[in-house]
């Protein structure tokens, strides 16, 4: 089989006030079920390689991680190549339970935004309080990015990761570029 191709073939741009890049392809698994169920959590932790995140948070370690999506949904992150197997493992582990594990790696894209102005550029597009006292690494926020749904978190200070649907990858990339255009510093957060 061919190599997987992410939506924008890992496009990047650093002509503006932050660096923007598509990081892909990335492995992603949706797990739906009862998040209070021990067996389910155990399987999730095994698949994600990190602890269960609290509400509205994400735990990551390198390419791996797990994000809290909603009261009955987790998003598990892993290397793309592993996603299928991990989904199968998960599905097997929760078989017989009322739960759903499904590979969604190809349905999404991940962007990274880097630089001291990263918070400012994000704040042009997302109606979210990104003040360092309100949004810190480890938090996970599903929201709106201009006109599409997206989720974002900060792997570390001055850096955002953004997940959105694959079909709007070009739109989001363009948006980020427009928002980071030279001369558009806000100097609000950065």
């Amino acid at each position, binding site marked *: 089989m061919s190599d997987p191709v992410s939506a924008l073939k890992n496009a990047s741009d650093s002509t503006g006030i932050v660096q923007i890049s598509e990081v892909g392809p990335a492995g992603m698994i949706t797990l739906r079920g009862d998040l209070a169920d021990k067996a389910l959590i155990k399987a999730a932790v095994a698949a994600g390689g990190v602890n269960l995140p609290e509400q509205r948070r994400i735990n990551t370690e390198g390419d791996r991680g797990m994000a809290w*999506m*909603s*009261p009955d949904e987790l998003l598990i992150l892993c290397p793309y190549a592993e996603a299928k197997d991990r989904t199968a493992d998960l599905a097997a582990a929760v078989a017989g339970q009322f739960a759903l594990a499904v590979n969604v790696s190809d349905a999404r894209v991940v962007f990274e935004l880097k630089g001291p102005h990263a918070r400012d550029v994000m704040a042009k597009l997302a109606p979210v309080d990104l003040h360092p006292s309100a949004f810190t690494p480890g938090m996970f*926020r*599903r*929201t*709106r990015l201009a006109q599409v*749904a997206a989720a974002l978190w900060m792997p570390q200070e001055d850096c955002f990761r953004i997940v959105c649907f694959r079909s709007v990858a070009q739109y989001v990339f363009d948006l980020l570029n427009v928002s980071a255009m030279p001369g558009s510093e806000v100097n609000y957060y950065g």
Partner: protein
Amino acid sequence: MLNIHCPNCGVTAEETEFHAHGEAHLTRFGPGASDDDFESYLFMRANPKGVHFERWRHQNGCGKWFHMARCTMTLEIFGTYSAQTTEPPQDILDRIRARRPDWNPHP
């Protein structure tokens, strides 16, 4: 621009993350129901000037539905609560009564 608290994920966010879905606590009528009941279920709306119970979805967020009690005259929000209920919970009713002593629930 309403500022809304989602009881499902705990986010408080502006209205653009949400979508309104009309009156809450309607009883579904299906086959066998009278014309009156069915019409009323599908179309007749309280549309009050004052306290309104309504359904919302955290569309650009956790994706879950919830209920909200809100005043249509001032846009004051008395609270949001689970969508998995057929009537407003007591704490919401208490808060409404505290804020609107004259309030009468719609028959």
